[in-house]
């Protein structure tokens, strides 16, 4: 496996931020009430991660060690605020449904974690790859998690929503009663629990097969 795909696949699978590292639980549990919300939060976080990783790896040799964390946080907060403004301006519906959790990306452990553990020690190129891998891993997990919860809890699967345009698949008939608890907070824990269990089962089996 080449270096590039190794870095990217690490975030997607072996070190998946949600399912393996269990980072960023706050947005993971709170906003995955629909597939589109999960996707939106994932993409917003990925954009912030990409920006902060690039900036931090660029200035990694200039920043004194003692003030590195304040510097990282200022950079991350700047990107988050820019992303929030853009969301409010261009994707108003998403901004309304994600609400408070957009500014909270600032304190998402994934971003500071990657800044500290990777971007502050690696070249720009490698940091971009890392951000793409981690961001994709986060986005995919939130998208699937939101999809499963929405499907069971509301009987639908929302792909896109902007103003009056709504791309939504109705999977269960409107007359069937969905499992309401799935889009309530307990549903987030239940679904995430099954996801992590599944992930562990697959990885154990893969390890067994490998050796």
């Amino acid at each position, binding site marked *: 496996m080449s270096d590039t795909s190794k870095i990217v696949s690490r975030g997607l699978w072996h070190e998946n931020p949600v399912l393996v590292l269990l980072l960023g639980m706050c947005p993971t549990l709170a906003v995955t*009430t629909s597939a589109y919300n999960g996707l939106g939060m994932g993409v917003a976080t990925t954009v912030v991660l990409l920006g902060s990783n690039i900036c931090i790896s660029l*200035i*990694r*040799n*200039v*920043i*004194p*060690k*003692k*003030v590195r964390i*304040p*510097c990282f946080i*200022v*950079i991350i*907060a*700047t990107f988050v*605020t*820019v992303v929030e*403004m*853009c969301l*409010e*301006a*261009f994707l*108003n519906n998403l901004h309304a449904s994600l*609400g408070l959790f957009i500014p909270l990306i600032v304190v998402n452990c994934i971003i500071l974690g990657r800044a500290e553990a990777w971007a*502050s*020690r*690696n*070249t720009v190129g490698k940091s971009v790859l890392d951000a793409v891998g981690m961001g994709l891993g986060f986005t995919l997990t939130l998208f699937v998690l939101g999809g499963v919860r929405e499907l069971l*809890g*509301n009987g639908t699967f929302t792909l896109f929503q902007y*103003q009056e345009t709504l791309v939504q698949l109705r999977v269960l008939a409107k007359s069937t009663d*969905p499992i*309401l608890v799935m*889009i*309530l907070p307990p549903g987030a824990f239940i679904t995430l629990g099954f996801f992590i269990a599944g992930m562990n089962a697959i990885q154990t089996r893969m390890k067994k097969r490998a050796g």
Partner: protein
Amino acid sequence: MTDKVKAAAAPTAKQDSPARLVITLTVVALAAGVALAGAHVLTKDRIAAAKARKKLASIKKVLPRCTNNPVDDALKLPGVKGKTEVYRCRKKQPDGSNPVVAVAIQQSSAGNKHKPYSGVIRVMVGIDVKSGTVRSYKTQKGKSEVAVVIVKHSETPGLGSKALDYDFRKAFVGRDLKGEDKTSKGKLWLTKKDNPQLGFVDAISGATVTSRAVTEIVQKALTVFNNNRQAIINTVKTNKKPGPAKATGNPPAHPAPPQGVQP
């Protein structure tokens, strides 16, 4: 790779001098400030436009067919607490006059006796000027709709969020401030749960708190209307930017087709 690791692992004494720390942080913060200012300038017009569009959309939902633009014909009137914006809908009559036939009033749960289950609820209510009752109308697809629109809420999805459904909101159709409508006299603005004889609102099962809060908000909107009825009908000029169309009768800018007679 090795030199980078060295730099990270063993910071030189020069890097740790207080002046260096201050300068680094200042530069980073300044750059961040510049970036934010730039982003603000680039997005602020679109954000304002998006907000205005949202407002107009919710007003359009309670006042679907007007010969004017209700946003341009708004009045700032004394509300339950402080000032409230009242959006007026005019309709051209056969004799050429262009009177106010309905208004939209937005009220929030702030100051409610019955608080929402979580956060704030905002409701836009459309009120018929002549009868002082909550409006209803037929959509273009022929469905009945109530002029009560929940603009913002953070109630539990699946429970409190059912207040958005027509089945709940239809209880308000044709009610005036006393709760009277054509069929029943002297009903109270209460849920049936609170007063089985005189309450008229079917509370949502599992979300009585939400039902009570929304009921009170709708009643508040009617109160604002009743307190300002004369001002709403008679004020000609708006206290927004002076538009030339208001005094000269019918502005031809919005040729809404008059589909059917609205209550």
